[in-house]
């Protein structure tokens, strides 16, 4: 089992985004800029698209690190606190969830 740090989390999430982008039409592909808006105003993703990204991110994190994380969040729809606003926040959230899991 590999410890999850930001770079590992971001890498796994990026792989998930690559996978989703394979089936996205040109113009609707998800940016891999860590600070681009992932979900929220001006986002190309609807809620189903966000679920797909999160599902792929969890699966790649589990595959690459052996760590089972659930990236569900009560704050999903919050503009200020949502971990789904950008890939950077999602990767940071994954590290936070994985760390909590280790402590439990």
């Amino acid at each position, binding site marked *: 089992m590999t410890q999850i740090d930001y770079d590992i989390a971001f890498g796994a999430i990026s792989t998930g985004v690559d996978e989703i982008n394979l089936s996205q039409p040109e113009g609707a592909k998800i940016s891999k800029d860590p600070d681009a808006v992932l979900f929220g105003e001006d986002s190309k993703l609807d809620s189903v698209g966000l679920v797909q990204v999160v599902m792929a991110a969890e699966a790649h994190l589990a*595959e690459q690190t052996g760590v089972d994380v659930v990236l569900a969040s009560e704050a999903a729809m919050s503009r200020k606190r949502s971990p789904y606003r950008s890939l950077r926040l999602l990767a940071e959230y994954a590290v936070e969830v994985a760390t909590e899991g280790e402590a439990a």
Partner: protein
Amino acid sequence: MNMSEKPVIAITGTRKGIGRYLSEVFLERGWQVVGCSRGASDLEHAAYDHYELDVSDERAVTKMMHQVARDHGRLDALLNNAGIASMNHAMLTPGSTMIRVFQTNVFGTFLFCREAAKLMGRRKYGRIVNFATVATPLKLEGEAVYAASKAAVVSLTEVLAREFAAFGVTVNAVGPTPVPTDLVGSVSKDKMRALIARQAIPRYGTMEDVLNVCDFFLREESEFVTGQTLYLGGV
């Protein structure tokens, strides 16, 4: 990730009763069966994996489903069979009973639906069958907590059916009448007779009756059937 050639079905509550029966049937049919219960299982078969867990333990459920992904690479179906009952007058029922029943019947069902749908969604195909009960529409006295927990399962089934449709996953529920298992073993025969008399077809249900409904929901041709609860016995 290895992809099993066999269809893979997850069944909760497989140590005994209906869950055990359903596991044996799907193993005979050549499926890979992944089961779980709070205790160990004596079901031994090359195509059966058993996990000891509490279905309301979020971490354990997540871990199990990720392991299913690693081992088999797919999940075709989920039967959310695990359940516990409580038969008691509401005024004599402690709050702790309500928590325990809701944890297994509602939280467990939700967690397995959520994690199964993630795995199913990757292949855009999946069939989920939840377990309701005729105690809900019959509004049975003495089963307030159990009936309410299963009403929540029906509601989850209806909403999840809509949320999971985009991922090719159907979500339905079967509502069995009493089937002679441990779950109804503690109820008096008189009470059971009175309950069965309220069915259109007044007899105990059988495990085959439950399987028949599961089979219908699981068929590939049932892709347009979702969000439904099918009660047995004409209730």
